[in-house]
């Protein structure tokens, strides 16, 4: 009975739960990486993520990657910028392990966050304590 009601009433909400989880995680990641910025300019190569980025507080979606403070990459592309690069899958993280600071991706149905220690250091980023458990030496 409980399950039935759960399915009847919460099924539409569940469909949105992944998106909400992603939004929360990205909020946490972006603000942990760039805590000093009053407004964080974010560029993303996946236009589908525009809405998600816009929903994050103190974050502005921009069209020019060169001006971005934070770049969210879902494809392998060479962009010369001082901004912090972050990827959306493990393969990109492996491919860009020299420049990318980290990645957020789904693995075995579970959300996974990884930060690469040496790239964090390159950007002089010190993560808050709650995020430090996701730091990896290498990949």
């Amino acid at each position, binding site marked *: *009975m409980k*399950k*039935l009601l759960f*399915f*009847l009433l919460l099924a539409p909400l*569940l*469909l949105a*739960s*992944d998106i909400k989880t992603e939004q929360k995680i990205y909020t946490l990641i972006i603000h942990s990486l760039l805590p000093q910025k009053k407004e964080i300019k974010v560029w993303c190569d996946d236009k589908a993520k525009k809405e998600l980025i816009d929903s994050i507080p103190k974050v502005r979606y921009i069209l020019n990657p060169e001006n971005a403070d934070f770049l969210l990459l879902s494809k392998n592309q060479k962009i010369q910028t001082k901004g912090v690069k972050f990827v959306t899958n*493990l393969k990109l993280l492996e491919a860009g392990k020299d420049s990318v600071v980290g990645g957020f991706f789904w*693995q*075995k*149905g*579970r*959300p*996974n*966050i*990884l930060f690469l220690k040496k790239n964090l250091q390159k950007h002089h980023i010190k993560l808050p304590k709650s995020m430090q*458990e*996701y730091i*990896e030496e290498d*990949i």
Partner: protein
Amino acid sequence: MKHIKKIYAFIFFSIIAAILYLFYATSQIQQTLNTNVENIFIKEAQSFAKNINEEMLKHIQHNPYEELKKNPQLQMNMEHAISILVNNSFKYIFVLYRDKNGNYRYLLDGSKEKSHFNQRLSVDKLLWNKVYDTQKPLILNQQKLDSLWITYLKPVIFDKQTKAIIAIDFSTELPQNIYHAIKPLNKIFFYIFIAIGLLILILVYQSIIGMKVKRESITDPLTQTYNRNYLRDLLNHIDITNYQIIMLDIDHFKQINDNYGHKAGDYILAMTAQLMQKEIRENDILIRFGGEEFLIFIKKSSADTHLAYNIAQRVRKTIDSHLFNYENKEISITVSLGITCQPEHFKSASLAIKNADEMLYIAKREGRNKVVATIPNRSATNEMQLKSIDDVKAALDEERVICYFQPIYNTQTEEILKYEALVRIREKDGSITPPLAFLNSIMYTNIYNDLTKKVLESVFKQIKEKKVVISVNLNFSDILNNKIFDLIIDELETHKDLSSWLIIELLEYELIEEISIIQDHLLQIKEYGVKIAIDDFGSGYANYNIFKQLPIDILKIDGSLIRDINTSEASYKITHSIVLLAKEFNITTVAEFVHSQSVLETIKELHIDEAQGFHLAKPSPYI
């Protein structure tokens, strides 16, 4: 009607119960299916995990991480073996170990979405650590993750130490398939419930409106008591034997309206109703019968046979002592009340109410602010043992209803001309009970009809045997009552040859509304040669119209006039004028209550034709 309502309620609740049961049963089916599927999958997962564990223990000696790292071929072989177990239901099967930092990393991965050896995986560390530390398998419900349903975790133990955890993830496809299969059925029930819910809301709303309208239709807006609409309904289903009936009327109410205005009258009515309501009990019923008349049904109590009388007295005293204050004017009122104590002895509730009304009339006639219960002339019956209907019925059955006969004399010749039959009950101990003790209790009942028949039979028997003229007493209401009238006609028809010896004495009637019926009935009776006498003329409201309207042969002057004829000039003059009037209409006059020689002399002097009374002869059972 009550049964129909019960049947409707039963059907309604049965439908609700059936739908609830089906709804519950459907959800139970889903739950049972889910549980059963869970059990099947868990058992299968346990079996898979056991096999993987055995394989690991078989090929690895002490440390899976070190040994698999050194032996990529073993790793590949084992991952291949695990991958065979992966299918749509068992989506991910893998083995993780816990590193020195407490993070979980891959040892083996048989899933299609393959991960590298030693690659990190974010898991719920609390629960995974529990498995690691307790060395016991765990089943996790993955409610927070969309694509997973259940995860089965089994520790892999080497040298009594947990070195890895086997994880088997079930995909959510199956429970979702079950859910989608049953969803239409659940939707149907859901909409049925909504429809029934709306229907119930509409029904409740309609019932509330209906009850409100019904209540307004049966409530008197001024006094907030029930009205005659309610009485009409009540009489259809009430068991009148459970009640005593009080009829109440506010004395001189017209004067209140005239002196203080109709608003004051309305105020008095409303306040009087409130006072009455306080004096009666919850299960008594107060009805505004009309105008200033109220009807109270008093629920009988086996412990108190005088309940209605006591309540009536209480009401009367309360209202009598209450000072009504309307616009700084103090108004006091009184009420008169009539009671029917035994409504069960009446043929219908309406007749029982009518009797209470007649008792009320008597209360008013006796001076108002009084309670009269069933017996009209209480002063005459105070010392008398009053008879119930059952007593009279028993007397009739046992042939103890008899007639006494009082002679009526010719005043000039002093010869007996005829007799007046007077009904009596002979008690079992031989004592005689007069009619005042029982006539009123049987009025309007079938027993009264039986008694009338008995008297007529007895009178005709005497006429036949003694060849004398005999008069019997009847009421105008008897002539109006078709049953009694038919009974009289039947008796006259049976004794056609003797009927000219019969005189019917009718009590003076105040207001004859159905005069044409009475005229018609009396003329029919007179066709048999029966003479008609008016009894007690001049006692109440002498209505001279009866000379014009009714075929009268004899006028019996009321005893109270004759009794005082020598002491009261008024009585003498009234009697004299009645005699003169009767002579004009060629009507025979009879003086009653002749109790002395001097009275006899006076009535002779006034040329009254006939006389009766104790001075001449007392009633006797024999002629």
